[in-house]
């Protein structure tokens, strides 16, 4: 008996969950996010199947984790590809529907129309507007949040039983909300549209645009026609003038052709690419060299106090990188930095680390070596321990010195197993946006480029700047560069997997 109750309870919970999920999906769909709605619906359907079918029992354990990977790793990757084929940017931010709505919300003042005195009243967190025309007729708006885009709201003649309005807000508050009020037009019961025309006044207005069946808009004031251009993402007048705001349009491969054929983009792109590879390569080389030398020293039995040394060497790795990078930023400062003070005392030399490209690059490499060598040391130490001691005994009998030992025995034996780690480290530094953003910000910039691009920018910090720092916020272009980077990382990963597999097979 209790068993069936349990079953009913489970069904009830499932039903509620499904209803809630469907509600969310419907809401997302109504907001115009078709793709997102479909993805959510698919997730919901799969979830329902997993938790009801006994055949999918093992997927019950997998579902939450796999969903997290799917939604926050796979979906962003796919979405990045999708964005790279659009002109999504701060100028083309809205969807086509939203952009149309924006234009349809525009109004113009009718000459000789009636004017209305108005007052603004608080209603909880929202506001209501009271209009009174010259004949003394009163209209009241519903509560408005006053932060949305242009909208048209119906205002009514107040009924006898309505709660009275609060006291009108004072002029200071009114002025602060005036920009928001300008976006709101009211439709009176007689069909007349009114908008703000002064600090205390509303005036009769008319809609500026009328929608046509083919998606174009007719300007009611001068009868000109705005046609949406689906290639550029703008509404255009007959003379080709573009009106803001634009909308996000599919632009095909044009972001990619821009990167590779437009010289003002391709030049910085290739220069940055060369520096990215150089930076990642040298970082790996330097950290490995320092790390492996220390690892060899730490394996030397004659040396006492190795445990202490090891801990000291490891400290750069344990301090959060964002703090050590900033410490270096201050120490390298040209005028007040302590490094320059020491250099000046020793040699009178006063380098400008942040404004000379070659010095900025060296500084990045110095800091990155400092940050990365402890990891290489720990990894190499493990591998060196695995080398059989009799090899060294044999070489000692043959009269070999420590240098011969290192180059003929140690290095050849650890290079192969450490290779996948070196490639992983290369891939990490290839995308090391934190170091660049915190230390140089990519600067000093190239002077001859259209988009801001720095001599110390990595490809990934270059995209970061295009998308989030540069005033243009060109998401489409950034997504295209990211897509290219994805391919590069994929190639690196494949090489890495191949090498790892070879190592595993040889170990057998």
């Amino acid at each position, binding site marked *: 008996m209790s068993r069936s109750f349990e079953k009913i309870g489970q069904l009830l919970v499932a039903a509620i969950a499904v209803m809630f999920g469907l509600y969310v999906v419907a809401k997302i769909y109504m907001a115009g996010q078709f793709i*997102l709605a479909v993805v959510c619906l698919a997730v919901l359907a799969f979830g329902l199947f997993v938790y009801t079918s006994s055949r999918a029992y093992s997927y019950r354990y997998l579902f*939450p*984790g796999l969903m997290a990977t799917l939604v926050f790793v796979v979906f962003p990757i796919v979405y*990045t590809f999708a964005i790279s084929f659009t002109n999504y940017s701060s100028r083309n931010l809205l969807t086509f529907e939203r952009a149309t709505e924006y234009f349809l919300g525009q109004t113009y003042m009718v000459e000789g129309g009636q004017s209305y005195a108005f007052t603004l009243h608080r209603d909880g967190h929202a506001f209501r507007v009271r209009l009174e025309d010259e004949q003394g007729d009163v209209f009241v708006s519903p509560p408005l949040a006053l932060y949305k885009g242009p909208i048209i709201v119906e205002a009514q003649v107040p009924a006898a039983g309505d709660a009275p309005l609060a006291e009108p807000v004072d002029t200071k508050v009114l002025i602060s909300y005036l920009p928001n009020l300008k976006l709101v037009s009211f439709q009176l019961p007689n069909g007349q549209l009114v908008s703000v025309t002064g600090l205390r006044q509303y005036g009769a207005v008319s809609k500026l645009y009328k929608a046509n069946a083919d998606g174009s808009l007719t300007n009611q004031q001068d009868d000109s026609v705005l046609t949406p251009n689906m290639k550029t993402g703008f509404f255009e007048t007959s003379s080709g003038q573009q009106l803001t705001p634009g909308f996000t349009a599919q632009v095909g491969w044009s972001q990619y052709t821009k990167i590779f054929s437009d010289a003002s983009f391709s030049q910085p792109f290739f220069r940055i690419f060369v520096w990215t590879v150089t930076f990642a390569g040298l970082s790996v080389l330097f950290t490995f060299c320092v790390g492996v030398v220390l690892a060899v020293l730490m394996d030397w039995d004659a040396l006492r106090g190795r445990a202490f040394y090891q801990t000291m060497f490891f400290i750069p790795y344990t301090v959060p990188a964002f703090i050590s990078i*900033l410490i270096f930023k*201050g120490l390298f400062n040209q005028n007040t930095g302590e490094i320059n003070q020491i250099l000046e005392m020793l040699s009178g030399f006063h380098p400008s680390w942040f404004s000379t490209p070659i010095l900025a690059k060296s500084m990045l490499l110095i800091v990155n070596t400092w940050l990365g060598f402890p990891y290489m040391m720990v990894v190499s130490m493990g591998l060196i321990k695995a080398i059989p001691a009799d090899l060294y005994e044999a070489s000692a009998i043959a009269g070999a010195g420590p240098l011969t030992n290192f180059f003929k025995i140690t290095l050849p034996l650890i290079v192969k197993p450490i290779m996948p780690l070196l490639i992983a480290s290369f891939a990490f530094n290839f995308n090391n946006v934190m170091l660049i953003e915190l230390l140089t910000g990519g600067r000093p910039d190239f002077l001859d480029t259209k988009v801001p691009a720095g001599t110390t920018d990595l490809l990934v910090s270059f995209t970061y700047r295009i998308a989030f720092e540069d005033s243009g916020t060109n998401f489409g272009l950034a997504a295209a560069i990211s897509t290219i980077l994805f391919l590069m990382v994929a190639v*690196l990963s494949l090489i890495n997997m191949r090498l790892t597999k070879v190592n595993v097979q040889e170990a057998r």
Partner: protein
Amino acid sequence: MAVVLDKSHRWRVVLAHIAIIGFICLIMFPFLMIFSISIRPGNFATGSFIPQTISLEHWALAFGFSYQGADGALLEPQFPVLLWLWNSVKVASLSALILVVLSTTCAYAFARMKFLFKNYMLNGLLLLQMFPSVLALVAIYTIFDRIGNYVPWLGIESHGGLILAYTGGIAVYIWLIKGYFETVPVEIEEAAKVDGATAFQAFRYVLLPIIVPILMVVFLLAFIGAINEYPVASILLKSTDNLTLAVGVKNYLYPQKYLWGDFAAAAILSGLPITVVFLFAQKWMISGLTTGGVKG
């Protein structure tokens, strides 16, 4: 050691010691410097490296107290460092907790059950964790911007959104825990099942207590990873009170407003606890990773 020693051996040892100590001085230089700067008065003073006058103004400001300067001017703390530290700890521990729960259940299924596409999924996860989230920043930003339109506490400028974004990095932990599960003999659970336990009960009451060490390791790894994460946090969080430490601390060193001394104290105050956790965790993590689940 059976290695033959020659005469120069002793000198080599001494030389190695000198070189190592020199190198340690070099790598410790930034930390010694930053400590000296934090107790030196003023933000621009370029005095001696060992401060002649000791002032606690930067430390007072870092702890959020205002400070009466020697010239009578009242200095107010510029940035809420302790709040940033708290934000970081909050985001990191919650996301680490979620990651542990999600990856443990997943790893259990991968280690113990047979199902369709299992190997494809495992390899897919391995491949996915090689793509850093920096590359999908534009998409991540857009996704959370849109989510925020419906659910504000998961959108841009919310810690909920950031926590959610971090839960994506689950793949590497699934592999880690799966490897540990495989060191536990299947017979233990089978015995439980013979006694009448369901699959979930065997997982919850038998297996879970055995694998606690690896869960600690995963929690710490995820925690440290989230504390140190910069790019995603920097695009999702903007207002001063909302920032995590990684995004916030750089505000001290804007060229227009260069607070070198205040930064020094704030860096030590916020960096030291994290460093201590890391150092402490390091020993523990190595022992957790190397010893299997079954003793004896």
